[in-house]
């Protein structure tokens, strides 16, 4: 389903990024990088207006002809980005939400590992398998 999954830290540094097609990785790195701006924008609006935007799921950040890019930001300012193929028209918002949910659970598990130092790059087999489940 997803073609690229990325985790971005508090300070906007990449913690984890994985693409289906590694030969085209750079292209996805650019896309993820671009999306950070939009995530920040959405988060700042959230602090000004009181109501609606209280969900962690940020919805679609932007779309190109080929891809749709979705974002999610945790309460601890960790951002998740998922890139999906635009041709995949059957994918509904709720399904994307579920993907982020899975990702967040996997991330919480990584952080709970006492040997993981918060802020480091994520190198975990369990997280890898959770991500590849999302991408399959």
């Amino acid at each position, binding site marked *: 389903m997803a073609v690229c999954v990325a985790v971005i830290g*508090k300070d906007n540094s990449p913690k984890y990024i994985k693409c289906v097609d590694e030969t085209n990785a750079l292209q996805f790195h650019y896309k993820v990088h671009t999306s950070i701006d939009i995530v920040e924008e959405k988060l700042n609006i*959230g*602090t000004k207006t009181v109501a609606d935007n209280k969900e*962690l799921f940020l919805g679609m950040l932007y779309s190109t002809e080929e891809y749709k890019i979705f974002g999610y930001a*945790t*309460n*601890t300012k960790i951002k998740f980005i998922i890139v999906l193929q635009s041709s995949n028209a059957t994918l509904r918002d709720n399904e994307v939400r579920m993907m982020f949910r899975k990702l967040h659970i996997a991330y919480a598990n990584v*952080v*709970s590992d*006492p040997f993981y130092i918060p802020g480091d790059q994520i190198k975990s087999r369990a997280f890898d398998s959770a991500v590849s489940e999302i991408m399959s």
Partner: protein
Amino acid sequence: MKHQFVDGKSVPGAKAEADECLFEYLHGEIINYVVSKSKESSEEDLSQLEWMGFSVGYRIIERLTREMQRFKDELDIIKFICTDFWNSLYHKQVDNLRTNHHGVYVLHDNEFRLLAKIGKAGSRQYLCESPRLLAFTCGLLRGSLANLGVACTVKAEVTALPSCKFNVEVQRM
């Protein structure tokens, strides 16, 4: 014991009481370990205990806030700490929260779980040992708040067992 039974009911899906004891025993042993290690120096060094709490708090908050909505502001975060956070750790809510709206919050717990079994209510026998039991929780608070983006210092205060106060002072940039 009565205390625990009440807890079991009030928390939906709570597991057996055994796991509550486990935390208390482990916590007790960690205190013993830290205190015995720092015996050489004249002053008791609880900073290691505080640091352990910090790293636990920093990690656990990711899990606890997973189902939560995004927090609006600092007060929202503190409210979460007083209710859900306290509930999942100590099976009760903070009894009283006071703030001066300028970054100082005082969390008042009338029956803090880790102090609840230290002697009779109002007993002063173990008053000077009680900071040992609070250092971990201070760190826990500081770590959780740090990960939520609130840099602060946390001080604990005990005047009469088993109640205690946590002073959270937010550091403004």
